[in-house]
């Protein structure tokens, strides 16, 4: 290292790589007027929010820094200029130009000699930069000409140069300039710039300070630290006023509300993926948590946020998942309405008996009525506009029928509520505008005899021509009763009663029903994850069960069944299971009238119980309970729509969904908690603006592996699987322009992911720690949406599995796949996987050494099949497994590998990247190691003998660990390494040549895959984020 010089492979022909799309941490966010300025890696993005329509559009997106991530964005007092900073870099830009220009803007990246904590304008032409050693650089930035020559006016410090994690600059109206500095280990320093005087040294926190701010008026200060608390101080006195506890891990960002007229309010975001709103009340030493949004980003870390509580009424957050989300402050301000039951009964004029409770609800949105039935048989109309409660006038013998039993359903379009008695008689109540008392109609039971009703359900067909009432009784010898009604000018009349013979099993407890209008099929969901189908098309009044699918998944009760697609003789339903599973199931009838059932999508939510679900504009909406609160979750977008702390699932509750006047879906959640009726309304302010998700992202944790499908889809895209360290796999489409569109997050794995690969067009597999190895089958929903279901799972060899399945490889054979799995304890296994029986048979079971195996490949030379591995000992080893395979076919015996044909040390330690390419009569093997080196070797076969020869060796091929290698055409390949440089290498005359090297902002660069068509390669690089490139 004595000679001077530059790293030769740090920047080479950068133009060869064209960045297409980037999804990674959002580390800076600022709201300015109707604009949201965001730092997404090196890219500055500006979004515009339309105050009237709540639509959000992207007005600017361009890379502003070569290498550094944008950590901070600040606008000048006039709004004309904006400064962005990150790492040592900063740039002063013209905001008007950014917003209005449609072309690429010329940007001059500037830098100082230190990490920049923050920067602020002082007037329009001066800039203050706070560096990580608590020093202010005061700059003249008046030069607006290209190339911008800035001048250092002053360097200012307070004689305390502790290293900082955080800091902010506050310019007060009285001209004071205050620096709030959050140090790595000695608390918060507040100093005044002009006097260089330390005003406060706040030491109440423990650990590093991650955020500190002074409010606009200079009255308060807030800070947060490693100790997971938020502290509010009186600025003048430097006195601690209150502490906020609640965050489950570190807090990264704090903002004061802009409105300073009432109580002091603070927004906080952190590692625990929550946004919290805090309120300070004088003389309360605890900050009150007013609002909590959980899981606002995937994985971990909300890195950035800002709030505008005055004008836009939103807060915005940016996460490690690369997503930017808007959170509505308007609807969150509106609290849940509550009415104690005493008041409800009193207002309704009911002399309530002891323990009388509300047991059922039904919402009539067009009348704004909430109809409620009580345990004493009373029915109450709650006019939600007038806030009046009225008892429905029933004769005492009518009321008597509903004492301690009364199931209530209804049809919102008909303003009709239907109650079912224990004996199966039905009371129809038709409500109308201007009349609080409904019209009553009874349908008396003639079928149940002495049997009792266990369930009462209603449905309407999609043309709203037939209304169905269904009654379930526990005696399986007594048929279910299905009544068909027609509506004439809003009035229901019974037209037909069908008796459905129950499935022949002791217990079939129905939980939901749906009518497929296309085929006239009735589909019933029940406990034990069982579906039953009746064909109503015959018109007969007594029907037998047509089909039953039992125990379709793990779990207990089906909580909802809804139709998602219907064709002639074929219907797809969404089935939700309370335990958290949801499925897309196809029920079809063949030419011989035989029914078939196929689960083509199966997944589960990462936590919580599902009480129901629906498909809304291609978004799968699920709702249910998570510990003590109720949630509505958009599974497609992976975001919570609303939630309510209601005390948990053991209560009377109902969720009503309806479209509001702007066509967006609103929700009303009604529940009883502590003898109080609660009505929580949610307005989807941003529902039609992609649910407030203004920038899409990826996993919120490091991506460990990714794979592009061999199949080119009709829309020009390919499937892309990404697997992250937090156990999730995402199923995406990689579009021709490099956009990555996510469809599903798969949660079947329970330990950290290692690998994901395609076995064929139709199957992919994934491996993880705890010996998890799953095979998945792919499918399509509505021809365009990829879906998948876990197809088979390899049983762990040990009862207490602790091995990592480090890698696998496969090839197709007549009945399935031959699969090799390699493990962290040096174990190598080869399996015969039969697709029909879904069985794994062990062909080879052996150990390599005592190290950890990192990769495995099958190599086929003519009729011979070889197995190659690479390990942490820097060796590659190759065996001929042709015998093992044929021996297994004959005798079904598991064998060992025997002596390896090749065992060659290539690297000093772990072989992390490996690419095998078949050439004419030989294989090219390129390996990259933890030792920074890249090696080119060849595998040839002569006279039945295998030869391994190393052709070239580049010792310094990267300045850090090489992590992956993927193909880029015939003789080129792409190499990723942790130094965040992606390189394209070429084999030329048996030598390795670095064609291009370019920086990527994706840290922990660890995996890649590529696809080459007509000389053009598109590569996807994964790590702490994911990016697509063409080269």
């Amino acid at each position, binding site marked *: *290292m*004595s000679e*001077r*010089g*530059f*790293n030769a492979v740090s920047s080479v022909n950068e133009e060869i790589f064209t960045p297409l799309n980037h999804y990674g*941490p959002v*580390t800076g966010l600022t709201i300015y007027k109707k604009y949201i300025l965001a730092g997404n890696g090196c890219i500055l993005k500006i979004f515009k929010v339309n105050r009237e329509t709540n639509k959000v559009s992207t007005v600017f997106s361009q890379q502003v820094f*070569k290498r550094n*991530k944008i950590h901070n964005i600040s606008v000048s007092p006039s709004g004309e200029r904006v400064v962005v900073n*990150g790492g040592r870099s900063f740039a002063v830009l013209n905001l008007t130009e950014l917003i209005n220009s449609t072309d690429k803007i010329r940007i001059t*990246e500037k*830098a100082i*000699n*230190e*990490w920049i904590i923050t920067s602020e304008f002082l007037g329009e032409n001066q800039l203050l930069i706070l560096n*990580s*050693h608590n020093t202010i650089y005061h*700059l003249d930035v008046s030069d607006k000409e290209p190339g911008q*020559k*800035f001048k*250092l006016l002053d360097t200012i410090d307070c004689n305390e*140069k502790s*290293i900082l*994690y955080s800091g902010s600059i506050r310019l007060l109206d009285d001209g004071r300039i205050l620096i709030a500095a959050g140090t*790595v280990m000695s608390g918060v320093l507040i100093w005044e710039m002009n006097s260089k005087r330390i005003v406060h040294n706040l030491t109440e*926190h*423990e*650990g*590093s300070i*991650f955020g500190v701010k002074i409010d606009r008026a200079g009255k308060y200060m807030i800070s947060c*630290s490693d*100790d997971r608390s938020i502290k509010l101080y009186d600025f003048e006195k430097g006195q601690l006023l209150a502490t906020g*506890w609640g965050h489950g891990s*570190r807090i990264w960002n704090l903002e004061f509300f802009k409105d300073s007229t009432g109580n002091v309010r603070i927004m906080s975001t952190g*590692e625990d993926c929550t946004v919290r709103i805090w309120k300070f009340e004088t003389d309360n030493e605890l900050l009150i*948590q007013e609002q*909590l949004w959980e899981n606002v980003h995937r994985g971990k*870390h909300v*890195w950035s946020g800002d709030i505008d509580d005055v004008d836009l009424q939103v807060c915005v957050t940016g996460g490690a998942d690369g997503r930017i989300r808007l959170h509505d402050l308007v609807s969150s301000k509106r609290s849940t309405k509550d009415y104690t039951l005493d008041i409800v009964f009193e207002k309704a004029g009911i002399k309530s008996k002891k323990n009388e409770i509300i047991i059922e609800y039904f919402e009539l949105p067009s009348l704004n009525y909430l109809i409620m039935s009580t345990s004493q048989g009373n029915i109450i109309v709650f006019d939600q506009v007038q806030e009046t409660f009225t008892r429905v006038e029933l004769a005492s013998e009518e009321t008597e029928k509903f004492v301690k039993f009364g199931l209530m359903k209804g049809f919102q379009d008909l303003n009709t509520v239907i109650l079912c008695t224990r004996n199966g008689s039905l009371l129809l109540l038709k409500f109308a505008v201007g009349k609080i008392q409904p019209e009553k109609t009874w349908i008396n039971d003639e079928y149940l005899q002495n049997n009792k009703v266990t369930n009462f359900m209603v449905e309407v067909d999609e043309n709203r021509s037939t209304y169905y009432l269904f009654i379930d009784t526990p005696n399986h010898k007594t048929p279910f009763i299905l009544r068909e009604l027609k509506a004439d000018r809003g009035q229901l009349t019974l037209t037909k009663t069908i008796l459905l013979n129950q499935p022949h099993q002791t217990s079939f407890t129905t939980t939901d029903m749906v009518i497929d209008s296309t085929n006239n099929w009735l589909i019933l969901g029940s406990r034990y994850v069982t579906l039953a189908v009746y064909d109503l098309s015959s018109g007969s009044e007594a029907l037998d069960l047509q089909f039953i699918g039992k125990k379709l998944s793990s779990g207990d009760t089906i909580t909802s069944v809804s139709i998602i697609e219907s064709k002639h003789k074929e219907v797809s339903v969404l089935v939700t299971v309370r335990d958290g599973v949801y499925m897309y199931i196809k029920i079809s009838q063949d030419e011989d009238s035989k029914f078939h059932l196929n689960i083509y999508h199966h997944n589960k939510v990462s936590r919580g119980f599902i009480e129901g679900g629906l498909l809304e504009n291609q978004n799968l909406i699920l709702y249910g309970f998570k510990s003590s*609160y109720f949630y509505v979750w958009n599974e497609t977008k992976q975001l919570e729509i609303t939630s309510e*702390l209601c005390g948990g699932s053991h209560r009377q509750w109902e969720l009503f969904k309806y479209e509001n006047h702007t066509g967006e879906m609103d929700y009303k959640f009604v529940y009883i908690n502590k003898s109080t009726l609660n009505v929580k309304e949610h307005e989807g302010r941003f529902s039609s603006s992609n649910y407030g998700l203004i920038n899409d992202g990826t996993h919120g944790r490091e991506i460990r592996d990714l794979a592009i499908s061999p199949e080119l889809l009709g829309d020009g895209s390919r499937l892309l699987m990404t697997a992250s360290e937090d156990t999730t796999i995402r199923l995406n489409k990689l579009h021709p322009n490099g956009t990555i569109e996510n469809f599903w997050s798969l949660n079947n794995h329970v330990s950290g992911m290692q690998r994901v690969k395609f076995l064929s067009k139709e199957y992919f597999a994934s491996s993880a720690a705890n010996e998890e190895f799953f095979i998945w089958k792919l499918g399509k929903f509505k021809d365009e949406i990829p879906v998948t279901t876990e197809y088979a799972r390899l049983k762990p060899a040990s009862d207490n599995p*602790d091995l*990592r399945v480090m890698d696998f490889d496969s090839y197709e054979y007549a009945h399935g796949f031959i699969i090799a799995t390699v493990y*962290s*304890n*040096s174990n190598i296994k080869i399996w015969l996987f039969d697709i029909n029986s879904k069985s794994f048979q062990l062909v080879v079971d052996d150990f390599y050494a*005592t190290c*950890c195996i990192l990769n495995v490949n099958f190599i086929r030379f003519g009729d011979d099949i070889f197995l190659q591995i690479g390990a*942490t000992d*820097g060796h590659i080893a190759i065996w001929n497994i042709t015998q093992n395979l044929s021996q297994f076919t004959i005798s079904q015996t598991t064998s060992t590998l025997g002596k390896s044909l090749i065992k060659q040390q290539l690297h*000093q330690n*772990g072989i992390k990247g490996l690419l095998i390419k078949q050439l004419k009569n030989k294989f090219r093997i390129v390996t990259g190691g933890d*030792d*920074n080196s890249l090696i080119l070797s060849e595998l040839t076969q002569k006279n039945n003998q295998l030869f391994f020869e190393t052709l070239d060796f580049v010792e*310094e091929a990267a*300045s850090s*660990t090489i992590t992956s290698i993927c193909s880029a055409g015939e003789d080129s390949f792409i190499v990723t390494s*942790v130094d965040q440089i992606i390189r394209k290498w070429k084999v030329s005359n048996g030598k390795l040549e670095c064609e291009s090297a370019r920086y990527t902002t994706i840290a*922990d660069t660890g995996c890649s895959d590529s696809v080459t068509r007509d000389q053009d390669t598109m590569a996807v690089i994964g790590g702490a984020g994911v990016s697509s490139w063409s080269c």
Partner: protein
Amino acid sequence: MGKSSKDKRDIYYRRAKEQGWRARSAFKLLQLHDEFQILSGIKRVVDLCAAPGSWSQVLSRELYQNQNQPDAKIVAVDLQPMMPIEGVTTIQADITHPKTLQKILEIFGGEPADFVCSDGAPDVTGLHDLDEYIQAQLILSALQLTTCILKPGGTFVAKIFRGRDIDLLYSQLSYLFEKVICAKPRSSRGTSLEAFIVCIGYTPRPGWNPTLEMNKSTEEFFEGADIGKAGNLKFFDLPDPEERKIAKFIACGDLNDVDSDATYTLDSDSKVKALDPVQMPTAPPYKKALEMKRRGDLVRR
């Protein structure tokens, strides 16, 4: 991960407990020594960011027992308190403070050190660029003190994370040492970015007199050293390209030695009982938050 599963997953963790090392990192220094003989013949040693003290344990065992140098002097510095180790003077202090340097020099009787090491690492935030910057600052802080106390020809060893700008650091170190090697002991996990710079043959910069002063940033400290650090405050132009170098990489520890990435089956004897860690973890800053959570005082909303 429970105690015993960590034993299985991490063979060095288990071994450290068996052999009485305070942390598994002891093996990293041992393997670095096996490869480079960096501890041979050294007398005055500074262990920076030393807590919990496993490197000081290694130094103590090596210098006093193996090399039988009763007059050797080992100083361990950390901001955290440390349990005493035989033959090691522990100082609870800030390594950037001039007084700390003074104290060490007093213990050494005014003589320079033969060897300075640092196994320190900050708590990571997960924001890679920030974490790598803070780690680089920690190394530079250790290097500041090193340039003030290390004898010409002496050795400096420090933990690094091989992230995006590690080649900048290699380049800067190459001005100060004859040899700069990036070493990866087998006991350091292959999945981790961790490695160690072994800087051999300290060569003081001609005409530069390093002086530790209160309230001088690392940037200011190295200003006159001319080690290729970009520090342009003239027109604030982005230094591009910067001086970057790749240090020679050496994996150390015997290939046949155990592998920290591999899973091992414990022999039946040791399976019976999971060993307690030698040194219990220190109280984290969020201790109060954890206690409140346990008591149910952290209301969700």
